[in-house]
């Protein structure tokens, strides 16, 4: 088999049965912000199959550690110390190495460090609430942070977001670009949330719940949760053993 790999191997078409539709009336803001026409499916194009690439020079070595990346020297964010870690894989279960992950979250009280957040929970002077990192050769990533708090949001008369961390992932193709949210096992707000409920497939929604990972917990120090992220995979490449993106 000497077939040459195409320069930008095509991806599997997106499985829309696993994705939230644009209009989910239970999440009120989608009503006026959802396109109503069908998306037009494009043939494979270089603009979709290529994408921006990032290197360690693009980020700081401490950006991954939300406990300290905004804290005064010797200080630390307030709240339950937590590691969130996992792997970025593609739909062929291959690791996605060297890809940029950015995250953001509320502090332990459920308050965001943002001009527009007026929730009465206190700002933590030692917590910024964002981090970024690159996956390693096996697609692994890790953030250290505090467990975010749930908070009220104006979707209904008494609606609360479950504790969550937002994740932004690039992959190696612009068509793999993904923003999602990670929830935490056992949170009673998960089944009540209209944003989680926007996902029609129960299994797809459940896959956004990070599980306690006792093996990765640091005894007497930090609990750990595991959250894997799956990006669209390449279709029919001849180079099975090549990691995604090489």
């Amino acid at each position, binding site marked *: 088999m000497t077939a040459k790999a195409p320069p930008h191997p095509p991806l599997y078409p997106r499985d829309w049965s696993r994705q939230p539709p644009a209009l989910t009336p239970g999440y009120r803001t989608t009503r*006026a*912000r959802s396109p109503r026409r069908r998306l037009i499916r494009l043939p494979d194009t270089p603009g979709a199959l290529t994408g921006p690439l990032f290197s360690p020079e693009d980020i700081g070595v401490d950006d991954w550690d939300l406990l300290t990346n905004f804290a005064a020297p010797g200080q630390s964010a307030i709240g339950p110390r937590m590691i969130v870690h996992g792997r970025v894989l593609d739909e062929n279960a291959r690791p996605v190495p060297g890809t940029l992950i950015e995250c953001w979250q509320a502090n332990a009280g459920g308050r*965001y460090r*943002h001009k527009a*957040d007026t929730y009465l929970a206190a700002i933590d002077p030692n917590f910024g609430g964002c981090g970024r990192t690159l996956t390693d050769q096996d697609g692994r990533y890790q953030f250290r942070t505090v467990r975010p708090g749930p908070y009220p949001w104006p979707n209904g008369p008494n609606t609360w977001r479950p504790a969550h961390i937002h994740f932004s992932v690039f992959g190696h193709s612009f068509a793999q670009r*993904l923003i999602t949210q990670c929830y935490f096992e056992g949170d009673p707000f998960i089944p009540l949330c209209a944003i989680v409920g926007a996902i029609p497939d129960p299994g797809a929604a459940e896959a956004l719940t990070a599980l306690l990972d006792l093996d990765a917990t640091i005894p007497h120090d930090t609990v750990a949760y595991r959250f894997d992220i799956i990006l669209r995979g390449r279709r029919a490449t001849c180079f099975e053993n090549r990691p995604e993106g090489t």
Partner: protein
Amino acid sequence: MEPQTKAMPETASQTAGPYVHIGLAPTAAGFGIYDTEIGKDIAGPMAGGERIRVEGVVRDGNGEPVRDVLIEVWQPNADGKFAHTDKVEQGFRGWGRVISDFDTGEWGFATIRPGAVGQGAPHLCLWVVARGINIGLHTRVYFDDLVEANATDPVLNMIDPPAHRQTLIARRTEQGSQPVYRFDIRLQGDSETVFFDI
């Protein structure tokens, strides 16, 4: 062997929410944290080609500006090469992100005019996220002064009815040395922008 069936399904998207700036543009959220915020400079100082600016506003179904939108841009250089596996000018990334003004919803970015790739007319790829958008929206920006190229672009020609193609054509508003293009995005309504499944 070639994998033909998926081993696992893609992770579900969730909205970027109203506080996307904290993660992707923290200076706009109101605090400095990173030594360098990525995505501020699409083309870099060394890129060849014509310098242009693209501006617009995203409007919802009520005609209201979307004031918490974040848009990412992906484009080739003036020779139609992507900063991926192709060789491009030093500092040319071809990718950037822009957020709207919190009061007016207006956004704008500077870049270079992209070159054509294959048979297609020159265009920018955009990806739009915001509160109330469950999964990022892909669209394209074409340029109204490239009439002949647009007329033969295979993607524009896929769009039916043809009137909808106009939603992807940015209008040149500044005829000076640096062209400025206006590209408003409409999420709903009769002039809803065309979005793609790429």
